């Protein structure tokens, strides 16, 4: 299946072939093919640009989360985001990549990939027949792994200890994500089954959401969040930072979805990348506007944090199939994502699952929706295959995460003490404060 194999790419791009097949008239008037060397450069460049855009999403998550936690936990949230991205970089190199893309070397066929650190092209090397440089592909794929970990940190903020969180990140980025992602993008069993997830609504976003959900359940809600049967809102400390984070994520998503075309060395491919950019953008817009309108209608006032979540939910929703929909359909898909968030946030609260930044509604709920919505535009996708993928990956990630969180809990403990939580993780675990000054007058030292 095209586009489900998020790595393999025959010379000159699957898409050009498709174009030839699909539009003979068009293909005829095309001048001779783009030379293979140029194709290689274009494809590699797509990975590099896509990669640095997605890398910047790490900053987006950091700012979003720093803005949505209380002041007393802001420095810790920054620390976790720096650390998790760094851990992902190293773990994906050491084990993740080859687990995810074993080629022919599966340990357990189509289920568990290969072990071993990833090696890339030599200096001055590169094989034109590969269609792109191995390093650019690694760079790009790594960023998806890091994104999965970023999702978890937001949900569990303000109460989880630093070190167990980092250990979970090691396991998530080194094993959990690569294994489930191999089933599809590594051409494992889900790919064989016809499951379609273009850029990772399920593989990345729902997966991150499931890991976060397992953590939230084991960890419990923040002190005071639910008391006497009431939900006690805990407002985020810095909404412009959260807004900035959302804009950065929106920007990065062009790399996330656009780069997942995996090729731009042909007219068909680069045209598809453009289509993806357009759909990605408008889905985010629709998600934001639906959340804006819905909160106005439901609560009588617009809720900025929901608008931000709505934009992100629009983005997550379109991620499973950002190419096939028309712009109109993309608006619908993104808009539904925005609506889902508005309803899912209070619903989670009903279950006393405390998700500090709304990562579960945004990434898990909208991720499931987006994966189902693939069938609306992609005729190769079947509802059955989509549901199988959603359930299989959900079950795997959720159960393994539950186990890991439980083991961490019963060994080193995952939650700070009540007193530390009240004091704030910044003082308790870092011994420093995000905004240490005593108001602006702190001209004393």
């Amino acid at each position, binding site marked *: 299946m095209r586009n489900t194999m998020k790595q393999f790419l025959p010379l000159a791009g699957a898409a050009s072939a498709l174009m030839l097949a699909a539009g003979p008239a068009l293909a005829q008037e095309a001048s001779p093919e783009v030379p293979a060397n140029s194709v290689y450069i274009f494809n590699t460049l797509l990975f590099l640009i896509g990669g640095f855009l997605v890398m910047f999403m790490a900053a987006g998550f950091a700012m979003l989360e720093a803005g949505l936690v209380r002041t007393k936990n802001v420095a810790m949230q920054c620390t976790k985001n720096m650390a998790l991205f760094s851990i992902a970089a190293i773990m994906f190199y050491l084990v993740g990549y080859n687990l995810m893309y074993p080629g022919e070397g599966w340990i357990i066929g189509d289920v568990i990939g290969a072990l071993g650190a990833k090696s890339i092209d030599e200096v001055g090397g590169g094989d034109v027949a590969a269609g792109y440089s191995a390093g650019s592909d690694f760079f790009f794929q790594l960023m998806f792994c890091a994104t999965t970990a970023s999702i978890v940190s937001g949900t569990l903020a303000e109460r989880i200890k630093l070190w167990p969180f980092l250990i979970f990140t090691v396991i998530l980025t080194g094993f959990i994500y690569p294994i489930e992602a191999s089933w599809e993008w590594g051409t494992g069993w889900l790919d064989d089954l016809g499951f379609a997830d273009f850029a990772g609504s399920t593989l990345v976003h729902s997966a991150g959401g499931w890991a976060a959900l397992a953590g939230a359940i084991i960890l419990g809600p923040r002190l005071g969040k639910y008391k006497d049967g009431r939900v006690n*809102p805990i407002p985020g400390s810095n909404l412009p930072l959260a807004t900035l984070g959302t804009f950065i994520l929106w920007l990065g998503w062009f790399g996330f979805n656009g780069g997942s075309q995996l090729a731009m060395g042909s007219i068909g491919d680069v045209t598809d990348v453009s289509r993806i950019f357009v759909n990605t953008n408008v889905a985010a817009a629709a998600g934001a506007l639906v959340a804006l309108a819905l909160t106005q209608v439901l*609560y009588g006032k617009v*809720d900025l944090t929901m608008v931000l979540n709505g934009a992100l939910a629009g983005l997550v929703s379109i991620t499973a199939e950002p190419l096939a929909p028309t712009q109109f359909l993309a608006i619908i898909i993104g808009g539904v994502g925005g609506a889902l968030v*508005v309803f899912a946030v*209070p619903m989670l*609260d009903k279950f006393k699952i405390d998700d500090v930044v709304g990562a579960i509604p945004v990434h898990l709920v909208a991720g499931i929706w987006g994966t189902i919505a693939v069938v609306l535009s992609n005729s190769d996708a079947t509802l059955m295959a989509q549901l199988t993928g959603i359930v299989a990956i959900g079950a795997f990630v959720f159960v393994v995460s539950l186990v890991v969180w439980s083991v961490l809990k019963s060994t080193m403990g995952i939650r700070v003490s009540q007193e530390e939580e009240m004091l704030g993780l910044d003082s308790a675990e870092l011994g420093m404060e995000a905004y240490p000054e005593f108001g602006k007058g702190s001209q004393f030292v």
Partner: protein
Amino acid sequence: MKLVIAVIKPFKLEEVREALTGIGVQGLMVSEVKGYGRQSGHTEIYRGAEYVVNFVPKIKIEIVAVDDQVDRIVETIASTARTGKIGDGKIFVVNVEAAVRVRTDERNEDAL
């Protein structure tokens, strides 16, 4: 000497300060407080959850003045800060036993 403590609505500060300057008050301190009183109790919704806003931002003004100015100060603040709506604030008067101007070491009424 008395310490006049006034809690008012924040946007009234500038007007009150001007009125006080007008009647000869030469010094005061301002700080931010959160007030709890009859005014509180409206509900807001944040991310789908209702909650009661208990504390309302207020400005606290503190002025130390000689005894015979106190009434005028209290009246001036009261009339300037009044909007007639709930939450306009309070004024309290406390006795002060001594005062010092740090710069000159002047004492008591000279220090004000």
